[in-house]
């Protein structure tokens, strides 16, 4: 499938480059609807591979790449289930998103995240599955999960650890702070800095350079240099499920979701 338009995203193939655009109001939250369409996207890789050198993941929203996992949906689903079954429901969702992100991580073509605006939690985990992150000067990155009592669950810790090292993971994780694009570039999270609103243009320019190279060599080099941290990813799912279903987390999430102030509740 060379092009697709769904409810939460769309993709289009053009001259060896496939562009996946997240387009889900209000903030490109990654919930079951987006995961189902991401599953369609990765299922199309087999057909795309022979004619594709690069995939760009971008957002239709001017100020948001993705605010992350759909916490409202996760919370409502968890609280609707009997307490003993909450973990199983969350685990099923995590298994699906991990499968999708592992496919993107190991895609046999180069993947570029073109980030503008907020890139938080699950949104950052999606960007981290890509090979290269291009971000504009207004981009901000964060793993705010610990502020609500759980950890990133879409593979963020193992991938950030793989790409940048443990000290950066600890700073972002233990403070939950948002990090600007300049800092993200300085620590190596962002490969290329773009002017305001120019991330997609720079990503396309990068893609057109990459398409000049031999695709087989590129895929081999990627496989060689970018191992999937399988064991840590499995452990992350277990830990997330263990932490997420605690009553304290449910209470913090409830407070966060019900807060209608200009700055939502975040300890």
């Amino acid at each position, binding site marked *: 499938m060379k092009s697709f338009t769904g409810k939460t995203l769309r993709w289009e193939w053009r001259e060896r480059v496939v562009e996946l655009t997240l387009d889900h109001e209000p*903030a490109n939250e990654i919930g079951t609807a987006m995961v189902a369409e991401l599953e369609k996207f990765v299922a199309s890789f087999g057909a795309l591979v022979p004619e594709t050198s690069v995939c760009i993941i971008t957002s239709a929203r001017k100020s948001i790449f993705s605010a992350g996992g759909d916490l409202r949906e996760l919370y409502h689903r968890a609280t609707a289930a009997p307490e003993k079954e909450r973990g199983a429901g969350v685990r099923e969702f995590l298994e699906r998103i991990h499968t999708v992100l592992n496919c993107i991580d190991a895609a046999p073509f180069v993947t570029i995240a073109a980030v503008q*605006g*907020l890139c938080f939690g699950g949104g950052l985990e999606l960007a981290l599955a890509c090979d290269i992150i291009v971000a504009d000067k207004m981009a901000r990155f964060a793993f705010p999960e610990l502020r609500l009592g759980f950890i990133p669950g879409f593979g963020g810790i193992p991938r950030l650890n793989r790409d940048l090292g443990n000290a950066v993971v600890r700073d972002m994780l233990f403070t939950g702070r*948002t*990090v600007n694009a300049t800092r993200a570039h300085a620590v190596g999270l962002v490969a290329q800095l773009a002017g305001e609103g120019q991330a997609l243009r720079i990503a396309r320019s990068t893609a057109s350079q990459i398409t000049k190279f031999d695709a087989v060599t590129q895929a081999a080099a990627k496989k060689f240099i970018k191992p999937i941290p399988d064991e840590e990813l499995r452990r992350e799912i277990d830990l997330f499920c263990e932490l997420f279903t605690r009553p304290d987390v449910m209470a913090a999430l409830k407070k966060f979701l019900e807060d209608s102030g*200009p700055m939502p509740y975040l300890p």
Partner: protein
Amino acid sequence: MRTLEQTTQEVLELAARHFNLPARSLAPEDDFFKKLGIDSLQTLEMLSRLENHFGIELPDYEVQGVSDFKTLAERIQSRL
């Protein structure tokens, strides 16, 4: 090194420019949430502009609970 007054003035000018307001329409004591009617997303955008302008990092937890330009300028000053 900027004085706190200079920093405050630059914060006011930057906010006015970002939200397309007349340069002198904002005062140090103004509550920016009320005066500008901004939400969390716009607040973070403003934070990015301030960090880029002053060449600093200002963790969002340091400005949590801050709602006036004067206190915001003090937080920035402590990072310069």
